[in-house]
């Protein structure tokens, strides 16, 4: 097992897979010992069995990603991990939906995205029912009032108060994981960039790193630097889009106007570097578009101008009484609850949990060029908003320091470590590579398994939104139903990332 902290490469011939009961038993032991279960998935094998994989964040020093492998017969049952570790709930549901392995005792066994044979059975979702004379239900979606992806929200209310919210997703399911097996692994990046289109860089980076590891051609620090720059540009753009949405949702119009044009400046800068406002085409396995000296200067200037105006509008927004009145104490997820249900990424940090792969699984890039671990303690809409502002500031500082450091070479000379037109190298056979990139919403995980011939056999994708949607459902409990839009925006989770 080789590991670059946020990446692990396993030779699958070295260890035999565990029987399902042993596999689940060991997962439970690790959870008890304080390891975090990041992903749990399986694929069908020829002959009808299921090959299962669990990915853990193991906190020993230095922290790293570790993998457990199991084997099961089709339709087998096992004792649900969720009973004692609610954080496993969405992972086990997906595991069940994709493999048919049944977690006995799971309290909430419902489809995650209605894939496979369940497609177009969206009307059959088993909603939780709250009974009582004064209970009423409000259903919204899948199509919402604004320009936003589809999903169905069903509120069970007592008067104006939300007693429970149930979120039904799956409308965006495009069958991404199956499609990823249909082409040469070297020309998958455009598809990977469209899995969750506002996080193209995070996905492309994880994908490129995995392919490069499987092909034994890792890039150098220069490649990481460039990809790191691209990722922070993406983080700034998406956080600002969310801040824009939050301001607009509470009719703080100056925020809407200013964040809107500030975001334009950032994504237009991205377009100047790679041809596309969303970073499409910037990263490819074996290469990344570098920054010429003039481009680097121009970017630095854009960021410096941006930083000043960004600070101004933040100050205005944070000082406004109407903004405070709407956001403070609204949509709170306590630290205990956040831990219990296994929130990840920004929303976990806004509830006081210090998790960020850039700090905890730094690898060579963030070892040398660290970003601070930022958290907020409130767990409410206000905390999620302020944390987004602070994360943008941290990204700006980091970018300006890197771009201003004349000793760092970001030009194409180093970024190109393979010629695109040569025949692409083969991938290692019998291997599993898991990569993790801390994107705007949290850890984007991709796991690629190869066959005896070095062909892709399984491609598992996991967006940070999947475990986090349940957090939104908790956040709105006991809140006014009219505060749902700001709660939803403050989480700003991905529908297509969940639905795949």
């Amino acid at each position: 097992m080789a590991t670059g902290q946020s990446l692990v490469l396993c030779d699958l011939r070295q260890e035999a897979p565990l029987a399902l009961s042993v596999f689940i038993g060991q997962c439970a032991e690790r959870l008890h010992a304080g390891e975090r279960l990041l992903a749990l998935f399986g694929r069908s094998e020829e002959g009808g069995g299921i090959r299962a994989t669990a990915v853990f964040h193991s906190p020993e020093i230095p922290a790293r990603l570790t993998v457990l492998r199991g084997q099961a017969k089709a339709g087998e049952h096992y004792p649900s991990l969720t009973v004692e570790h609610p954080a496993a709930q969405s992972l086990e549901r997906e595991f069940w939906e994709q493999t048919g392995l049944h977690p006995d005792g799971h309290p909430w066994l419902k489809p995650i995205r209605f894939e496979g044979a369940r497609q177009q059975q969206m009307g059959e979702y088993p909603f939780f029912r709250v009974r009582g004379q004064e209970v009423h239900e409000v259903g919204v979606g899948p199509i919402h009032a604004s320009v936003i992806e589809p999903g169905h929200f069903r509120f069970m209310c007592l008067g104006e108060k939300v007693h429970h919210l149930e979120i039904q997703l799956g409308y965006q399911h495009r069958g991404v994981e199956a499609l990823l097996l249909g082409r040469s692994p070297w020309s998958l990046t455009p598809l990977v960039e469209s899995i969750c289109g506002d996080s193209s860089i995070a996905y492309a980076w994880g994908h490129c790193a995995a392919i490069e590891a499987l092909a034994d051609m890792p890039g150098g620090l220069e490649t990481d630097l460039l990809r790191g720059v691209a990722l922070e540009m993406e983080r700034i753009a998406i956080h600002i889009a969310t801040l824009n949405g939050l301001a607009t949702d509470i009719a703080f119009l100056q925020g809407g106007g200013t964040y809107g044009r500030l975001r334009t400046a950032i994504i237009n800068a991205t377009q100047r570097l790679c041809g596309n406002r969303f970073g499409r085409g910037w990263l490819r396995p074996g290469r990344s578009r570098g920054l010429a000296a003039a481009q680097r200067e121009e970017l630095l200037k854009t960021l410096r101008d941006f930083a000043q105006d960004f600070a101004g509008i933040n100050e205005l927004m944070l000082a406004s009484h109407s903004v405070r009145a709407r956001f403070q104490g609204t949509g709170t997820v306590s630290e205990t609850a956040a831990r219990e249900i296994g929130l990840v990424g920004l929303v976990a940090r806004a509830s006081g949990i210090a998790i960020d792969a850039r700090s905890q699984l730094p690898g060579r890039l963030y070892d040398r060029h660290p970003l601070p671990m930022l958290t907020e303690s409130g767990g409410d809409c206000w905390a999620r908003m302020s944390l987004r502002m602070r994360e943008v500031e941290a990204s700006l500082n980091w970018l300006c320091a890197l771009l201003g450091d004349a000793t760092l070479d970001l030009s194409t000379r180093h970024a190109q470590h393979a010629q695109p037109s040569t025949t692409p190298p083969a991938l290692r056979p019998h291997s599993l590579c898991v990569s993790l990139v801390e994107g705007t919403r949290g850890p984007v995980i991709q796991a690629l398994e190869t066959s005896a011939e070095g062909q892709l056999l399984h491609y598992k994708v996991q967006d940070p939104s999947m475990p986090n949607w349940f957090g939104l459902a908790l956040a709105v409990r006991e809140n006014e139903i009219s505060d749902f839009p700001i709660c939803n925006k403050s989480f700003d989770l991905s529908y297509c990332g969940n639905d795949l």
Partner: protein
Amino acid sequence: MFKSISVRRSQGSQYIPDPRQAQPAGFRGKPLIGEAACAAGCGRCQEVCPSRAITLSPVQIDLGRCVLCGDCELACPSGKIGFDNDFKLAATEREGLLISAARPHIDPVKVSAELHKRFGRSLKLRSVSAGGCNACEMEINALGNVNFDIGRYGIDIVASPRHADGLVLSGPISRNMTAALQICWDAMPAPKLVIAVGACAISGGVFADSEGVDRRFLETVKPTLYVPGCPAHPLSFISGILDLLGISS
């Protein structure tokens, strides 16, 4: 108060005066296919293309499929394919989106006198994402920001299909969205039109071959305007719709 004024001052005036004349720096837009001869037996561009947008002999790119990734340019050993920052990519006919050395331009959008009369001063649109990856959706949202400000032409995104004259479709149409899309379309009062935004909506894009996609909706409803891109650039959308409705900018 003073803070608010200073933020307003720094905001300045941000709208693009004439979107048709904009110059989006660096944008990888319209493909340019040169006259250079292809190396014998070479099909590199076709191999790397993620959306089956390229056909060979002669080399032709279907902008309805192309996601403007630029990979074909890098793969081509003969330097036959390039891109410029032309964002006027929209067309009123699906076949108008084919580009080759012999046919280097997209068919210009046909101005419709009827649509001009009906919607030239006010067009209300309802957006439906049917499997979109949130990039086209964010660009559709950006149409209304202070830079593109499409509202100045009387074009708005509205909340209810009942209030809408047109449906802006993004995404390849996931099977799980087919029912909702149809209900939304049926709820819109006639006369009504569909605008297909992005490679996914036009052709299925990189998802065209997926079993999770069901595009039968478009067998019964033909889009009035196709806006290519991945995601479609706001300028492609604006110039296309202004041309269609005969609105001067």
